[in-house]
């Protein structure tokens, strides 16, 4: 608060703040948090079953419920956690698991970079908290929204991310609990398809012009190509860099050298 405002003395300002400002702020905050929670529902639908699958696999690999839960609290990275559990089961060293997880997570560099321009008004601690919960899914939801509506309040951002992570943690703990007791078929019904379906929807919503579609098709072909070549950890990042570079080079919305380009 700025006490040197000419609207009155600090004391009356402070009391005004508590009487009016804070109430309105609280109301808005609650509303914003609710919006964040609602926007997280598709992610939650995907995270509960996949967190469950992770929990089951973790307990099968010999992790205790608390280890699996701690991983979901402190790491919170679906594919990295699933891969690490596979490596733990195979008896890999701490070093090689860490390096693999690092490689798997490198794609987040690009996601984080592409969200960065929208987060310039957040405070540093808010940026830290936001980044901590940045996943493929929350990235996809945020980037679609930022592009269309700009940046919402931090409360909404945080509520969305936190709801998603709580679903992930809940899934993990329930899964680990079940995994200690019985075998469980994670492919039953349609739960494992929630995330691919979500990625499809978010991809479609991101395509706003013809060039986006072309770059998406290129990235898909490159992603598949490098995946089949055996770049099982790096295919996403390699395909993305090549495809986005092609996109930037052929982009017609800006003429870097003052010349028109054909598609």
């Amino acid at each position, binding site marked *: 608060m700025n006490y040197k405002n000419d609207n009155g003395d600090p004391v009356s300002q402070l009391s005004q703040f508590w009487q009016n400002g804070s109430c309105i702020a609280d109301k808005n905050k609650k509303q914003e948090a609710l919006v964040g929670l609602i926007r997280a529902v598709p992610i939650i639908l995907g995270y509960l079953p996949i967190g469950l699958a992770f929990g089951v696999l973790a307990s099968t690999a010999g992790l205790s419920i608390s280890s699996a839960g701690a991983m979901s609290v402190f790491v919170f990275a679906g594919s990295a956690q699933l891969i690490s559990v596979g490596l733990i089961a195979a008896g890999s060293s701490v070093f090689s698991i860490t390096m693999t997880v690092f490689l798997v997570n490198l794609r987040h560099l690009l996601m984080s970079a592409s969200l960065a*321009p929208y987060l310039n008004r957040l405070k*540093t601690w808010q940026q830290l908290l936001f980044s901590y919960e940045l996943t493929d899914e929350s990235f*996809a939801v945020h980037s679609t929204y930022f592009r269309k509506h700009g940046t919402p309040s931090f409360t909404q951002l945080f509520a969305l991310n936190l709801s998603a992570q709580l679903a992930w943690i809940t899934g993990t703990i329930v899964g680990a609990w079940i995994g200690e007791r019985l075998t469980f078929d994670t492919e039953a019904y349609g739960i494992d398809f929630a995330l691919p*379906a979500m990625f*499809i929807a978010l991809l479609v919503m991101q395509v706003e012009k013809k060039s986006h579609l072309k770059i998406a098709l290129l*990235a898909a072909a490159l992603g598949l190509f490098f995946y089949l070549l055996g770049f099982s950890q790096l*295919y996403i990042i390699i395909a993305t860099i090549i495809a986005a570079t092609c996109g930037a080079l052929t982009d017609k919305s800006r003429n870097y050298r003052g010349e028109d380009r054909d598609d």
Partner: protein
Amino acid sequence: MTDMILLIFLMALVTFIPRVLPILLLSRRNMPATVTVWLSYVPVAVLAALLAPALFAPNGTVNLAFDTNPAFWVAIPVFVVAHFTRNLFATVLYGMVQIALVRIFLS
């Protein structure tokens, strides 16, 4: 047990670093137009590169057989639903129901 604590700590570290560095370093900087345009293609590219292997080759090799990789075929109407509804929740729900029905039919 100490190994597990160390592992979780290291995993948390190597997960957090790529997530946080670009946001901390780039958000308060005016980026050149070239970079902004490049970044604007990242979301579609990342999502497409992530999806393609999952749909075409879920087990490491290309498999478009309906009975062993129904996800690929179900993805097609999911794209259509996504295109026309533009709704995340509706698309996810449709996808889950559709693949469940296909699996029941196949079993």
